[in-house]
């Protein structure tokens, strides 16, 4: 029973923190979010070249586990980093890896590992759920090609992506049957993107319309019509990854509020001397530390393929969904007016956490999953 990070993991965290605080100070985050694409391509390239990717080594990755990805994403949450790492690596990359489609991996992962290829996953539609019932875009097989029609919303970094892994179903199917993942080049004929702008200014998304987009059948990732189990696993990984980002955003937010409470005086004393503020911060600390336990337990469980891996992922996401709104929100309350200004970085964390709350399952979705796992007996044994 070792809950602490290994030495390698500590080194990884230090490496990432150093890189990001160096390359992405608040001033540069502001530049990036004002820019056309919303991120800095050069920083992104350098970042993925740090050798930290979960992809297999033969495709240029670092073969790192989910615990390591959680460490990386927690650090990203502390900036919060604006860029397509999550989209390329945690969404599209996970879909390729978990599909076990060697051809597709060989085709896309080496370039992605270089930072030359940006990918994303188009899952969400007008229906914003995270079960197979939410999918209605249609992919029709016509001999050697497949034709895609449908509209995807909130596609992360769709404007920047070269490849959009798109989730669609065989016409006439429903539920978990008939779901496929298809690699669509962003410049394919019939693909058009529409602007979205979110409350979380550090994340970019777009609406993508697919009108009779035709690609070769080789672009289907894994087996046609049988992608749901893969997607379920992708969403689970994404939920844990998002939880890690929310943890980073929460902890950084709390640290800022805590520093402020030690410096800001009102009524002749530091505001951190008022119990109202002190106790609020103590509650944040409790939530952050519990969140740490939840995120890393879940990441470990995925790596270990533990029987309670799905349960732990839902515990982590539902917990961070409720904690991060409280921690980031109360940080604003502690900092008062200054926390409400655009000039202070605090709102970035609040917004990033809020955005991640509704992605990869809200609390309703995950409490449902938790109970299902419990009723199915997929819980951790007490060592037996």
């Amino acid at each position, binding site marked *: 029973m070792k809950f602490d990070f290994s030495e390698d993991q500590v080194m990884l965290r230090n490496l990432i923190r150093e890189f990001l605080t160096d390359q992405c100070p608040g001033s540069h985050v502001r530049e990036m979010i004002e820019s056309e694409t919303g991120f800095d391509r050069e920083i992104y390239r350098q970042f993925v070249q740090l050798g930290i990717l979960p992809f297999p080594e033969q495709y240029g990755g670092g073969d790192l586990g989910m615990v390591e990805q959680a460490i990386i994403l927690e650090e990203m949450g502390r900036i919060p980093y604006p860029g397509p790492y999550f989209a390329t690596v945690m969404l599209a990359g996970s879909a390729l890896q978990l599909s076990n489609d060697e051809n597709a991996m060989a085709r896309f992962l080496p370039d992605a590992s270089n930072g030359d290829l940006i990918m994303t996953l188009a899952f*969400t539609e*007008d*229906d*914003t*759920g*995270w*079960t197979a*019932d*939410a999918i209605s875009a249609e992919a029709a097989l016509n001999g050697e090609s497949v034709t895609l029609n449908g509209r995807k*919303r*909130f596609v992360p970094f769709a404007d920047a992506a070269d490849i959009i892994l798109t989730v669609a179903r065989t016409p006439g199917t429903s539920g978990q049957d008939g779901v496929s993942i298809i690699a669509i080049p962003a410049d394919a004929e019939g693909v058009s993107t*529409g*602007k*979205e*702008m*979110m*409350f*979380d*200014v550090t994340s970019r*998304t777009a*609406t993508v319309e697919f009108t009779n987009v035709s690609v070769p059948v080789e672009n289907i990732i894994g087996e046609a019509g049988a992608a749901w189990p893969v997607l379920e696993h992708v969403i689970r990984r994404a939920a844990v990854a998002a939880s890690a980002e929310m943890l980073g955003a929460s902890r950084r937010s709390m640290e800022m509020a805590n520093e402020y409470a030690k410096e800001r*005086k*009102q*009524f*002749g*004393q530091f505001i951190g*001397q*008022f119990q*109202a*503020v002190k106790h609020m911060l103590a509650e944040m600390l409790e939530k952050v530390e519990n969140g740490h336990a939840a995120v890393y337990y879940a990441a470990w469980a995925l790596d270990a393929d533990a029987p309670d891996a799905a349960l732990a992922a839902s515990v982590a996401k539902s917990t961070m969904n409720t904690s991060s*709104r409280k921690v980031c*929100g109360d940080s*604003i*309350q502690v900092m*008062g*007016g200054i*926390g*409400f*200004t*655009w*000039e202070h970085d605090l*709102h970035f964390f*609040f917004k990033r956490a*809020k*955005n991640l709350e*509704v*992605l990869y399952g*809200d*609390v*309703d979705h995950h409490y449902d999953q938790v109970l299902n796992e419990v009723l199915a007996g997929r819980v951790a044994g007490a060592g037996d």
Partner: protein
Amino acid sequence: MDLRYTEQDQAFRSEVREWLEENVPRKKLETLDEKKAWHRKLYEAGYLGMGWPSEYGGRDARPMEQAIVGEEMVRARAPAPVNGLGISIVGPTLIHHGTEEQNQRHIQKILTAEEIWCQLYSEPNAGSDLASLQCRADIDGDEFVVNGQKVWTSGAHNSDWGLMLARTDRNAPKHQGISCILVDMSSPGVEVRPLKQLSGSQEFSEVFFSDVRVPADNLIGELNTGWRIAQTTLSYERGGNTLSRYTRMQESFNRLLDVVGIVKRDGAALIDSPHIRWRLGKVYADMEILRYSSLRILSRLERGERPGPEASIAKLHYSELDKAIQEVFLDILGPYGQQIEGIPDHIALEPDTDPFEPGSWAYAFAWSRAGTIYAGSSEIQKNILGERVLGLPKEVRADRVQATAQQASSSGNGDD
């Protein structure tokens, strides 16, 4: 108890509603002139400053009539009057504390929006602890010389005049060295720097004063009595307006009801999710409580009572409730609730013409986070309730300990 609206009130409501239907601008007011014109129209219809005495251009209207106008304006999506602070804060302050000359000079122009006013209270180091403000107004002959900085000044960029709290005696205990002064915002040495908020909009400013000369005649009331004047002023902010806050929430709720009937999640309309139904039921129940308690406050105002420390309950309640409700709205709406641009028409919070809320759920959400901070944070309200309503002893606080120590030291060692 009788919670029916009187026939008189009902008739008045119909009249207001009819007038608004005919007169509310159908397009967003862009220019300051357009905004002033709308303000003036509201005034001329008798819907601004309506509780003021008729000698000052008001109509001695009852609190219920004011509440009805407030409600109907929200319902009609009428833009707020551009000189809102002039009407809600400055006018009443002048009426209670101004000289005849000051009132003659300003009150009519406040009503017609010929003069737009802002409130120069908060400072970077004087937020919750407003009385520690440091902006100075030093007397020099028959003028004040003002130096310092204000922050969180709403609408400063449009303002002709400001109602300022400034320190006029640096040696007095902090509450006793503050004065209330009228400042011409076009005076040399006044600099307004817009402040961008978390919401992305810029409703507030920082205002800097460098050797700004203000005629001594612009003092309100006695010198060094500004704190007491401001306390009365602040109480105008609380009380009768809670009903229109309820109405605003209800308008959003009704819009949400439309949306949840259309938008689907996991293949079913949102309204068919039992969890969303539960949340909608709870939110509506919570909103109704605000309505009932607003009626209770109005009933007291109608009886002629002034809002006392109990008004802190209303402030605490509606600001915390708004925060909770907006969060629930976003829970229900999923990513659509966080969209600022590109939001489908059938999901958008209907764009009203109020510049404060440009039609996205996310904006309303963002602003709800400010409500528990400004005009006395929730923590301050709870202190007021604990001490002034529940009668709990004051907390031991550094400034009080220091004041006691100074008093003891200045009175010698006599009481050892």
